[in-house]
């Protein structure tokens, strides 16, 4: 396995296997699907909508949404388009499908019909098949993206792309490490190379599908350099298979300076790496995820967290923001709650869109830090891969020079421990095996000493736990009582 474009033959051979893995696979006709895509108007194609937003400096809104049954799902999306004024729509896939458990998904569909409410936490697109997907995409007037969390999404990609979706989220790392326990990185890279090649194939035939990397990873105190390194790696993997429209993502940390620095840097540094590897004709856009960790239960407080995320997304100039809802702490939102999150977000975006935050030294300094960290990680990864990012990722995760906190997967060391500094920016309590310079190590140490002093306690795992709960309890930094 290497980060090179798959041979057509190899790809086509694999396709046959993949399409056989569940009956609906037989519904896919690639040539017919390419023609189908060619007829989709530009305002319903992610790439074009993203490109326009990028040029205009606007931030688009997108919810998460998916229910078990086709008609309900369509109703849901239409509602979010109309009442939520969503610029982009999603189809969030259920967790059984994500783990290729199509039989359980089938049970979920049947139970949902029987009980008259969605028993699945998303839309089981594979079970529903190509026609159903087209029906979904045709029923709205904006692009629809497949959003999931699937280590092996080859069949899902085949069916949904044939089904008219123009955007596909995920990646070999971002949809493996936070979403599974036992999938080797080599396996998920192979499977995602397939997906990327499939999209590359569409691209070769003039059809642009956008590929988005899932920036937030475990959603839990992920330091920007970690998600940046992963996003860049996934961009390089996708580009190698011929993908030409790529979005890289980032999950809000909560400290405004760090968030603006991170999202600004993300687009600059990813472009640089793409260029360095010879990919010069790629449309690169950014995605900002509103706070991905535990939410407050109170809806007013949730609105505040949503609004704060919208503000950072807008001020940071992200191309799109993924929106949370006031139901976040409880469960999959009703369509009404989902629309509320969207409308609050849009109000903030519109209020900040003309505001420029310029000449801020703190942001520049933070950019320098994240940049140096990200580069150290990627350099080490590439070294281990002898210049090949795919091999480098496998070896890098093994060595822990790249690592993801709080992940279920046993293929990441899980040695790094993040924690907030005294201003709420996410720093490292434990750097694990990350290949950071002495300067960077000292930087983090100093930052945590600063906080420790204020709180009159040593930085420890207790502090981390406090930080994990903090936002859901109404704070950014998890202080001990009365601090």
């Amino acid at each position, binding site marked *: 396995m290497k980060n090179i474009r798959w041979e057509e033959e190899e790809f086509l051979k694999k396709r046959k296997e993949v399409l056989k893995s569940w009956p609906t696979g037989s519904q896919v006709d690639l040539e017919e699907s390419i023609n189908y895509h060619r007829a989709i108007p530009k305002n319903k194609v992610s790439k074009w909508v993203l490109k326009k937003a990028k040029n205009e400096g606007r931030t688009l809104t997108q919810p998460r949404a998916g229910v078990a049954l086709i008609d309900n799902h369509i109703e849901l999306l239409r509602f979010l388009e109309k009442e939520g004024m969503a610029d982009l729509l999603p189809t969030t896939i259920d967790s059984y499908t994500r783990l290729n458990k199509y039989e359980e998904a089938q049970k979920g569909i049947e139970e949902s019909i029987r009980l008259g409410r969605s028993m699945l936490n998303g839309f089981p697109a594979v079970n529903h098949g190509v026609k159903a997907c087209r029906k979904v995409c045709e029923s709205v007037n904006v692009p629809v993206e497949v959003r999931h969390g699937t280590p092996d999404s080859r069949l899902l990609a085949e069916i949904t792309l044939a089904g008219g979706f123009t955007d596909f989220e995920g990646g070999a790392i971002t949809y493996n490490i936070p979403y*599974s326990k036992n999938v080797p990185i080599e396996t998920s890279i192979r499977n995602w190379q397939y997906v990327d090649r499939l999209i590359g194939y569409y691209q070769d035939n003039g059809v642009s599908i956008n590929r988005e990397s899932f920036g937030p990873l*475990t959603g839990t105190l992920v330091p920007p350099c970690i998600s940046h390194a992963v996003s860049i790696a996934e961009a390089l993997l996708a580009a190698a298979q011929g993908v030409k429209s790529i979005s890289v993502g980032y999950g809000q940390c909560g400290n405004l300076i760090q968030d603006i620095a991170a999202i600004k840097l993300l687009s600059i540094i990813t472009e640089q790496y793409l260029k360095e590897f010879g990919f010069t004709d790629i449309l690169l856009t950014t995605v900002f995820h509103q706070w991905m960790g*535990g939410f407050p239960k109170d809806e007013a407080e949730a609105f505040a967290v949503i609004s704060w995320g919208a503000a950072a997304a807008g001020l940071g100039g992200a191309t799109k923001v993924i929106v949370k809802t006031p139901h976040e702490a409880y469960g999959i939102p009703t369509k009404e709650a989902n629309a509320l999150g969207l409308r609050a977000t849009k109000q903030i975006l519109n209020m900040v869109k003309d505001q420029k935050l310029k000449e801020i030294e703190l942001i520049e300094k933070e950019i320098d830090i994240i940049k140096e960290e990200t580069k150290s990680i990627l350099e080490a990864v590439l070294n281990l891969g002898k210049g090949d990012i795919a091999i480098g990722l496998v070896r890098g995760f093994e060595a822990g020079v790249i690592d993801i906190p709080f992940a279920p997967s046993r293929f990441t060391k899980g040695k790094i421990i993040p924690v907030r500094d005294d201003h709420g920016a996410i720093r490292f309590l434990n750097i694990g095996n990350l290949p950071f310079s002495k300067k960077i190590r000292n930087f983090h140490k100093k930052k945590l000493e600063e906080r420790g002093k204020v709180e009159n306690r040593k930085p420890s795992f207790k502090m981390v736990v406090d930080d994990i709960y903090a936002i859901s309890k109404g704070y950014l930094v998890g202080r001990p009582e009365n601090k």
Partner: protein
Amino acid sequence: MIAGKRKLKIVLGVIGSDVHAVGNKILENVLTEEGFKVINIGVLSPQEDFINAAIETAADLIVVSSLYGHGEIDCRGMREKCIEAGIGDMQLYVGGNLVVGKKDFTEVKKIFEEMGFNRAYPPGTSPQQLIDDIKKDFNIK
């Protein structure tokens, strides 16, 4: 726990195809610090793994987490499987975000109690609540 006494053994895990690992890690941490013996089978755990672990370790209590919304499907039949496996009177607690969507919890509680769970908890229940209830149920001071 009263020092010197046998430690209460708790099997902990996240059921079904659920990968939410954070709460699980924290629960392990907190329950262990409280003095319980925790056997954490982690995320993505089928009912069988909970039951096998409980039998192997002669556990007193199984604490099931389900965050991702499929709890209702994933937990069905668990009590029956316990009975089959000969641990029919095992204490079963369940918590997390048990069902799809924001629902009135009294209703949800009923569903899980009817399934044979001894206790079922609403979203965002604090670990302290869990500890308090364990102590009550197992008569620990």
